[in-house]
């Protein structure tokens, strides 16, 4: 089916991009391996959609596609929360430096 070809091509591109990033040392090798497992699992589900249906039935969800959708929502929410957390950490670092700069003179006077 054309949709399968399109999705597999996208996953192949994602896999290549992941390992390119690993070679550039933007991400670590274990991270690249973890992402590759995700991509391979996604490719497997695309090529054999009935596997998700079997899993969905086991979990009491009607269709495989629904299960993938539910899992995606959970995964996206988790990723989004992680991004918020790292943003918050960056904000805290920024405040720390702004405070350090603001108190520089007063600390000097004390010494």
């Amino acid at each position, binding site marked *: 089916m054309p949709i399968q070809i399109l999705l597999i091509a996208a996953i192949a591109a994602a896999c290549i991009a992941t390992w390119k990033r690993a070679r550039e040392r933007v991400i670590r090798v274990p991270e690249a391996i973890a992402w590759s497992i995700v991509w391979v699992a996604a490719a497997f589900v695309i090529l054999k959609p009935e596997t998700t249906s079997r899993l969905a039935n086991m979990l009491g969800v009607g269709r495989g596609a629904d299960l993938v959708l539910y899992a995606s929502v959970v995964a996206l929410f988790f990723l989004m*929360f992680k991004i*918020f*957390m790292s943003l*918050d*950490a960056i*904000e*805290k670092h*920024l*405040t720390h430096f*702004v*405070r350090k*700069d*603001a*108190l520089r003179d*007063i*600390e000097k006077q*004390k010494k």
Partner: protein
Amino acid sequence: MRTIAIVPAYNEGSRVWKTVRSVLNFVDEVIVVDDGSRDDTAVQAALGGAFVVRHAINRGQGASLKTGTEAALVKGAEIILHVDADGQHDPNMIPTLLEPIRQKEADVVLGSRFMGVAPTDMPVSRRIFFIAARTFNSLFLGIPRDVTDPQSGARAMTADAARRIDFTSDRMAHCSEILRLVTRSSLRWKEVPVHVRYTPESLKKGQKLSNAARIAWELLVGSARR
């Protein structure tokens, strides 16, 4: 006891001078934390007689209070007082806030708008916000319900208490965070009535009903980081 007031100020050039002058009547020193203002807040504060500490960029009221508190500790403060820059807090309340600490009855004194002294011109929306905040605080943060003012900005504390209350919220959630830290610690705390006057200018900057969700979110992210 050497008392230093911290006044966080962001674009308060038109009002900070008056606030500094009136607060100076009751304390030994005023530290204004100019939170990256784009107007002449720093100049006006210095003209008023305050020691000015400046954030290079805006970091929020919580961050400013923390910077000011650290500055006050370096300067040898024995009592630290937090006051808003917009003139919303009646400076005549300062002795009431300081008295329990001077009498060694409390380590932290929180000013409350809901202890009998009626606030001037408080809008209904603000009142609803405070009821919601009080419920949220007690349900989700474990702040006792006997804390009558969930978002009080006027507070006084000993230097030792200031060192122990390690609040990290940079923006709006700091009031709730300070209350949580104080009421869960072994510090002796007390609420005293304060008078607050609402003006169109102070309402523009203060807590709004729409901020409630943001405060809750800040507290959630903040607690997840710990």
